[in-house]
């Protein structure tokens, strides 16, 4: 498979209205892959990560409302190797479909016990794990009766410039997915499928939380082990 194989959406996707004035109109200048691979990622020690940052249900005195869930998976590179010790950031709406962000004017309640932002570092085998509540769907004004399917935003770094990824994770069986121009901007159904988590009874904790499993593949590859 070629290094450049991609399920990415195009920049311009007029069904998603905000792309029209923001997608670059000139062709991107293509550089050989190694120019990107040659730009190693920066040190992320500056972004503070506390152990409690990965449990979004325990960031306030009380418990948030909603369906408690666990989201876990592995971060892998293009060769299928684990990406250890890399920063994963997530953010999402609350169970009612409302973001804490002051720009969100959807008339659904804020939850005083839920912010909706989390961070963690992958472990030595590339595993990440978050505890949160399932986000609600919410309306937006892209087109008449437009609703975003429930989703969690993810931001990942990996080893190098080429591996930077911001994406969204969706939930299996969500009936809004076929109507969503952001998800549907991905032309290949296999690509869209890659953004849908799997309900996982193994991750599900009895009498506590439903489990979802979602692996993430970053572009590029891990550094070749140094010769001794």
């Amino acid at each position, binding site marked *: *498979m070629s290094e450049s*194989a*991609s*399920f*990415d*959406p*195009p*920049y311009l996707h007029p069904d*998603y*209205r905000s*792309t*029209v*004035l*923001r*997608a*670059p*109109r000139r062709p*991107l*200048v*293509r*550089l*050989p892959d190694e*120019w*990107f*691979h040659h*730009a*190693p*990622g*920066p040190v*992320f020690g*500056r*972004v*503070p990560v506390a152990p409690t940052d990965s449990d979004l249900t325990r960031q306030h005195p009380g418990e948030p409302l909603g369906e408690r869930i666990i989201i876990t998976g592995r971060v892998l590179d*293009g*060769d*299928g190797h684990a990406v250890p010790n890399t920063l994963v*950031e*997530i*953010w999402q*709406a609350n169970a009612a479909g409302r973001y804490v*962000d002051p*720009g969100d004017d959807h008339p659904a309640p804020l939850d005083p016990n839920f*912010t*909706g*932002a989390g961070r963690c570092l992958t472990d030595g085998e590339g595993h990440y794990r978050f505890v949160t509540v399932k986000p609600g769907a919410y309306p937006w004004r892209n087109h008449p009766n437009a609703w975003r399917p429930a989703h969690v*935003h993810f*931001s990942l770094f990996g080893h190098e*410039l080429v591996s*930077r*990824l*911001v*994406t969204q994770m969706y939930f299996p069986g969500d009936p809004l997915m076929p109507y969503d121009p*952001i*998800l549907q901007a991905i032309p290949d159904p296999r*690509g*869209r499928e*890659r*953004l849908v988590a799997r309900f996982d009874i193994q991750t599900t904790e009895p009498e506590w939380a439903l489990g979802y499993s979602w692996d*993430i*593949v970053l572009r590029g590859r891990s550094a070749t082990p140094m010769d001794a």
Partner: protein
Amino acid sequence: MADVPTPSQTVGPFFAFALPFAGGQQAADGAGPESVRIQGQLLDGADEPVPDGLLEVWQTDQFARSQTDPEGAFHFVVRKPPAIPGPNGALQAPHLNVIVFARGLLKHLVTRLYFPDEAAANAVDAVLQEVEPERRHTLIARDDGGVLHFDVHLQGEDETVFFAS
């Protein structure tokens, strides 16, 4: 086994409570002689400010992140990087990698910021040579009384050059 990477989706409009962090705009303390302030505006195809953008600067050990304000303005404080060799072994002109996220960008954009006081190095930089001469100015910051000014135009006459691999 090689696998196709997970596809990209937009950062959306509502990340400001999650991604910015204290001191995130400063990769340098601002006191050292090599430290430089960079400011600019993120603009759309109607030349309107993009008030819900997020930019990141990457360069070896430096990382900084700035959301745009209602005027589309962002700023960073970084150390001016040295010339580093490219994959072909030749020295590249000092530059910063800049990544742009925004609502309406289904995938982030990657560009480079070059320094206005490096005319000789810029003239032979291998990546700048890949860019049509009349568009190179979009990658070179402007010295504005000791502050470097670098606007990012997503579209239009002065559309910034963006790179892909």
